């Protein structure tokens, strides 16, 4: 059976160059970058190099603005909690969007428990944040705004540059979660005009275990993880050298190959976005029709629940994910789909294809071939579909 992996958001294979770069630091170069003897030199040099590579990926002038962390989730926790705590003498109000990743959303909730106040900026039906809405939500005691660069569940890219301008006018610190975009499309922290930006290597063919938070020089932040003075005292703990090296290499490869990669992904994504609703009735595309991640095609298939769809696709060799309640371990439908105004019933039919470097046109065509009978089969079992049909008949 054909194997078609379209769940790159959940995990993706390392590219060969990243693997090669990491291997020496997993085996022979086991030293600690802090060590003053010879064993410390290769890891120290390698971590410095990786810092430059990551700085370059996001067009940061000063590589010391890059703080390595362990995951995108950690970067977001660090940003939200660390920036809020460092600026609390000015106020205790935080603004985020209603469709942030849980790592931002729940960090903000934790800050609420510590006496902060959080406002959620709504999104429209495409998952887009209106900069005006952000501006309106800023108060005199607002100290932090965090709006994601793109939402990975529905692919929508947010107008960060426009938002940043308005936030800067109010002299409020602005963080963006760019985990879904960094390495997948060109990013310049200078052009965006943000103060802090999260990115993670596992989203662009780097390994688990290394991510980064970029914080503009001069912007204060409180550490999330205290201890030794690694990362300039901003993030403690012995460096995960192999993973950092992998992140650096992945950043370098992305800087070079981004344009080619986008050219590869976009037509495949567009084919899926246009053809699937043609092959299956009652399928809605979720997210923005144009402003979306190059590898993201997301839908809701009406009258069907996502997990059973996912499992039947899996039985045909196709890996996808879903934002349905049953597929989430929290057993709640994606807050992103709900924030976009979809009903719970429709949100349950969520299916998300995240394409990658290895995705081919044949893969897409295979999905277009196997998925309609699966949808049909589930609809034949669905009491919601039965009701719909009955109504439609009754309506005639």
């Amino acid at each position, binding site marked *: 059976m054909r194997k078609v992996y379209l769940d790159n958001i959940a995990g993706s294979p390392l590219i060969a160059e990243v693997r090669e770069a990491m291997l020496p630091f997993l085996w022979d170069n086991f030293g600690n970058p802090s060590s003053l003897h010879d064993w410390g030199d290769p890891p120290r040099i390698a971590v410095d190099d990786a810092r430059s590579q990551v700085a370059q990926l996001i067009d940061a002038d000063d590589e010391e603005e890059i703080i390595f962390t362990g995951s995108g989730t950690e970067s977001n926790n660090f940003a939200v909690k660390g920036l809020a705590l460092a600026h609390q003498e000015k106020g205790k109000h935080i603004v985020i969007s209603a469709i942030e990743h849980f790592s931002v959303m729940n960090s903000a909730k934790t800050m609420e428990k510590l006496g902060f106040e959080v406002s959620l900026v709504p999104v429209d039906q495409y998952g887009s944040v209106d900069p005006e809405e952000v501006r309106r939500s800023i108060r005199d005691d607002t100290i932090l705004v965090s709006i994601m660069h793109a939402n990975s569940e529905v692919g929508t890219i947010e107008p960060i540059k426009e938002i940043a301008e308005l936030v800067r006018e109010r002299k409020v610190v602005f963080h963006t979660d760019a985990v879904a975009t960094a390495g997948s499309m060109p990013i310049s922290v200078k052009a965006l005009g943000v103060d802090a930006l999260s990115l993670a290597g596992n989203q662009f063919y780097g390994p688990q275990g290394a991510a980064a938070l970029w914080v503009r020089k001069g912007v204060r932040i409180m550490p999330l993880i205290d201890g030794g003075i690694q990362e300039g005292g901003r993030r403690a703990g012995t460096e995960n050298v192999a993973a950092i090296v992998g992140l650096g290499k992945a950043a370098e490869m992305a800087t070079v190959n981004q344009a080619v990669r986008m050219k590869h992904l976009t037509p495949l994504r567009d084919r899926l976005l246009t053809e699937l609703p043609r092959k299956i009735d009652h399928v809605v595309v979720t997210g923005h029709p144009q402003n979306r991640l190059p590898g993201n095609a997301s839908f809701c298939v009406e009258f069907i629940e996502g*997990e059973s769809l996912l499992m039947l696709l899996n039985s045909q060799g196709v890996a996808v994910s879903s934002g349905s*309640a*049953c597929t989430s371990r929290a*057993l709640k439908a994606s807050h992103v789909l709900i924030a976009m105004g979809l009903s719970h019933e429709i949100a*349950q039919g969520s299916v998300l294809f995240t394409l990658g470097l290895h995705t081919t046109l044949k893969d897409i065509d295979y999905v277009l071939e196997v998925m309609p009978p699966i949808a049909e089969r589930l609809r034949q079992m669905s*009491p919601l*579909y*039965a009701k719909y049909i009955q109504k439609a008949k009754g309506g005639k």
Partner: protein
Amino acid sequence: MPIYSEKVMEHFMNPRNVGEIENPDGLGEEGNPVCGDMMTFYIKVKDNHLEDIKFKTFGCGAAIAVSSMVSEMAIGKTIEEALKITPSSVAEKLEGLPKNKFHCSNLGAQALHKAIENYQSKQKKGGGKG
């Protein structure tokens, strides 16, 4: 371990008794779209026995497997026996369900019981035929 037992997978891939019964003797609905699992059970009763059962289910793998298993367990049983089918006995027959799926997706027994109640209340009203 994989999240579902082999038995769950088998029933999910080949669910028994999917469909509707026209003019059923009893009909039971359970679940709602917020939690993501909805089931409708249709029963045909003869001589106090569940002569036929059909169901339609909107929901996850567990919900579909549970519906299928409930229908298989109940078919041919007396009303009293069928009312003894519980979520636990269904989960056991399915060789276990993931912890977090137990409550939400394991509504099959309730849906069947509702169908039976529906049959019984009709009986009371209409004098019954069973």
